[in-house]
């Protein structure tokens, strides 16, 4: 019981995730700055931002339902932290693993977007409402490719649990190469999920101020920000676990170190992506996802099915 609590709250639960998220956030921002030939923020900046927001007054617009408004960010954080509990960090599987947890993780990662939508939609501000509508529109565009590209490796591994998948790829490391295409589409979908450039359409500041978050302030905004940062590392960890399942055999600190390197590597790729692209328009984003990313993700499914057929023979 105490072990579970420790697992949920401290490591690798909330506390670890929060600290790691802040570090990842710092690396993302610093790298972004370096790539833009700037100095960038000092190491404590994400923490300072969080403390600053937490110390500020929470302003709740008069017409909104205060409960929903306050609960939305809490749900967002809870969902991403819960999702993290199923992702293997230093060995195959986690104490919580069960067959089918990959589906659960994917769904839990959808919840933040839904809370962005609810929080924004019920903010009663035109900017928030447009941002919220865009969040949902975008969800439909990236969610299918993300599911397809994560589930394809599961098909090949013939296991619906992350632990099972990593175990399979640990035994057959070369099979992970079949999933290279999926890695690519999953990364693109992750950019959409995290609402990062070029898919930061729901919070495009030059159009709709801060999108869903326009009316949020203080602790509630801090929670949303934290949820997004944690979602970034959880999403990155998921992709790392599915597509780069190497080194978990080493066990212990070595595997954990490799986990950090993989996640931060993906964070670096995200930082690079947001440096070199312009923001797309919502129609362009949806077209791109349906006409390019989804078919390619589907191709990944076919590759894995064929590969599986060949292996079975």
């Amino acid at each position, binding site marked *: 019981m105490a072990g579970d609590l420790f697992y949920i709250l401290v490591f690798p639960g909330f506390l670890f995730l929060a600290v790691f998220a802040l570090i990842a956030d710092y690396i993302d921002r610093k790298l972004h700055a370096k*790539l*833009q*030939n*700037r100095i960038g923020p000092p190491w404590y900046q994400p923490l300072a931002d969080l403390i600053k927001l937490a*110390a500020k*007054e929470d302003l709740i617009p008069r017409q909104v339902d205060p409960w929903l408004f306050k609960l939305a960010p809490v749900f967002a954080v809870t969902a991403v932290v819960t999702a993290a509990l199923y992702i293997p960090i230093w060995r195959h599987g986690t104490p919580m693993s069960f067959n089918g947890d990959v589906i659960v993780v994917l769904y839990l990662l959808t919840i933040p977007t839904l809370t962005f939508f609810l929080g924004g939609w019920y903010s009663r501000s*035109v*900017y928030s*409402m*447009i941002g919220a509508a865009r969040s949902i529109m975008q969800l439909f565009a990236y969610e299918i490719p993300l599911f397809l590209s994560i589930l394809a490796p599961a098909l090949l591994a013939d296991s619906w649990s992350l632990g099972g998948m990593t175990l399979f790829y640990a035994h057959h490391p070369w099979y992970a190469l079949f999933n290279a295409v999926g890695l690519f589409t999953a990364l693109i979908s992750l950019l959409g999920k995290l609402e990062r*450039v*070029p898919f*930061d*359409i729901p919070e*495009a*500041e*030059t*159009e*709709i*101020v801060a999108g869903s978050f326009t009316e949020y302030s203080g602790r509630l905004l801090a929670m949303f920000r934290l949820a997004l940062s944690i979602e970034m590392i959880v999403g990155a960890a998921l992709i790392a676990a599915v597509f780069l399942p190497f080194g978990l055999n080493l066990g212990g600190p070595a595997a954990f170190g490799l986990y950090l390197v993989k996640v931060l590597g993906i964070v670096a790729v995200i930082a690079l992506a947001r*440096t*070199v*692209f*312009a*923001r*797309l*328009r*919502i*129609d*362009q984003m949806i077209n791109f996802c349906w006409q390019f990313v989804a078919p390619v993700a589907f191709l990944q499914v076919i590759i894995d099915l064929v590969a599986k057929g060949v292996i079975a023979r």
Partner: protein
Amino acid sequence: MSEIRSRNVTIPIGPQHPALKEPTSFSVTLSGEKILQVGVRLGYNHRGIEKACESRSFIQSLYLIERVCGICSHSHSSCFVQAVEEIAGLQLPPRAMYLRTIVAELERLHSHLLWLGVAGHEIGFDTLLMYTWRDREIVMDLLAAITGNRVNYGMNTFGGVRRDISHEQKADILKAMDTLEERTKYYISVATEETTLIQRLSGVGVLSHDDAIRLGAVGPTARASNVKRDIRKDDPYAAYDQVPFDLITSDCCDVYGRTLVRVGELMESYKLIRHLLNNLPDGPLAVKAPRKIPTGEAVSRYEAPRGEDVHYVRANGSEKPDRVKVRAPTLANVQAVAHMLKDRYLADLPIVVAAIDPCFSCTDRLIDLTRDGDGRCDVITWGQLHDYSMRWYKGQGMDLAKLNNRFKCGESS
């Protein structure tokens, strides 16, 4: 019908909005993401400069006029100075003409580079913003070295210019031109090759050739619609009739075309500045101007980086102008914006507005001097805000009053 109408939302873009660097107000009626209608309300930045000039002497007005706009300060001051010089019948020494033109072209450089960055920012491409503004610093430093300030150069005076360009500065400028030319070539390659950029710019904010003429568009906005309209060619002033340069136009008629025109003009400006510097005539910097300007009137036109700037000055023989009228380029272009936004996406609004390179402080020039009828005002003063925050933090169990005494600022009204 009412069902349909109720689905439309009207969102305010401005007076304060992240897309606008200056206050103006667009009320945009949307159906989903589509823009149905755009209403523009200007005037938030009116500072009464035209009226204020009438109670100031010419030399005082000059510095006021220079502050009509931060970015094109040299444009406005040159335009004003030209009008006054025409009334007073002053013949400028050739060196003054050349120096004025050099600063004008340097200003065009930094304005266009600034625009490129702003355009990048409006479409969420902050990297372009960071790079172009980094390179723009080269021009800013040159201007600071030549004139003594980064903006509001104070280069002009009636009858000439106030500062000279030394030999070392000339060498510095020529060197900087080479660097910037290379950088601009790179930006041209980015603008014409980066897919996400082209997707956001191409086909957006279309203004046809005929519409551009009908709506009176000026500057790069008009030239991108293939209207050959450039005051430097049509109505040459300063040294422009003595230097060779090309008129850059594009027939894309959209934001992409406006980008191409501006980067094209950057390349022309490098050429111009080199030519001007290498042929800089010797001589005095200024002729002496009288304090009292004889009775007369003059219209002065000037091709500012954003388009045609028009000043009308009337003098009545005293030390003060009788009437000063400023028509900034944005006022001519803003009509076209509403036209360009019809049936476009909301996401295009920032870049379409930015594409005319608007400068609303140029456009408006008067502050609200009267209070509301009952004398009440909804201005939260620094003191009130400070007291409120103290109370709020005290309610949270933190007493910052002691800490804050050190920062408490005395205010004078």
